[in-house]
């Protein structure tokens, strides 16, 4: 079984006010100059029965595209996974 993580963030060039606010009001006072960019997004985790890491990730990518879990006009996705025994993180 694979735990596949789908992360949805705004594409470069599409402003992300949530990330901007976290950077400006939470981080910058103390860590100014060290933290370049902060982006906020959505995180969705799937437990997938699959034979390989590739198969698990491709399936989640396909679901994300078919079911429009992200809007390609404004978002990009990051898909990553790891093998798990019983689904616990």
């Amino acid at each position, binding site marked *: 079984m694979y735990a596949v993580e789908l992360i949805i963030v705004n594409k470069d060039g599409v*402003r992300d*006010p*949530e990330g901007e606010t976290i950077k400006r009001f939470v981080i910058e006072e103390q860590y100014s100059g060290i933290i370049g960019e902060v982006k906020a997004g959505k995180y969705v985790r799937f437990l997938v029965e699959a034979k390989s890491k590739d198969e698990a990730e491709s399936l989640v990518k396909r679901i994300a595209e078919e*079911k*429009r879990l992200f*809007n390609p*006009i*404004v978002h990009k996705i990051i898909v990553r996974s790891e093998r798990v025994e019983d689904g616990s993180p």
Partner: protein
Amino acid sequence: MRTAVLKFPGTTCEEDVVKALRLVKAEAEVVKFNSFDPDRYQGVVIPGGFSFGDYLRAGTIAANSEAMKGVREMADQGKLVLGICNGFQILVESGILKGALLPNLKLRFITKWTYVRVSRKDTPFTRGIKDVLLMPIAHAEGRYYLEDEEEARELAVFQYSNPSGLVVEEVNPNGSVQNVAGIANQAGNVIGLMPHPERASFSKLTPDGSTDGLEILRVFGK
């Protein structure tokens, strides 16, 4: 015309929309999303609210429903489709209208009366109507985005403006490109807008007694 007012779990504005539609003599009724038969209607309105709790993103879950396949059929057949607020978000998320509606630039839920300029009068909804309409907005995710600003301007039917119809950045409430408040498809039979025409349809409920929302809804009474 026979008009369905679609109700998803979390839709809140359906009764107001039906009342406003009946004022313009439309044969309107609320239809639950899981018992919607598109062949029975000439028009459909997707009202505002918080369908499926706005989980993931406003409109995304509803966009995946069977009901929206029916709405797409109607759109393709040239029937009238109107999405208001959350309904606009659903139309965009289902790809029936182009673009995206992002969280407001200031990340706050905004509720206020806005003027919009009617920028396209080549749609059945806007043919022959006034140049500037007064309607309220109430949303957290209304920042219209399309990478190609020129295209956004072409699709735009309503743009936030000042009372005389000038589209200026100062009155842009949410950071939409080109002050877009509403767009149509190329054919003009599908429109989505963030302002609520049904809340600008009863003179006792508007700040100046106007009923500009009815101007847009009138087409359903034909």
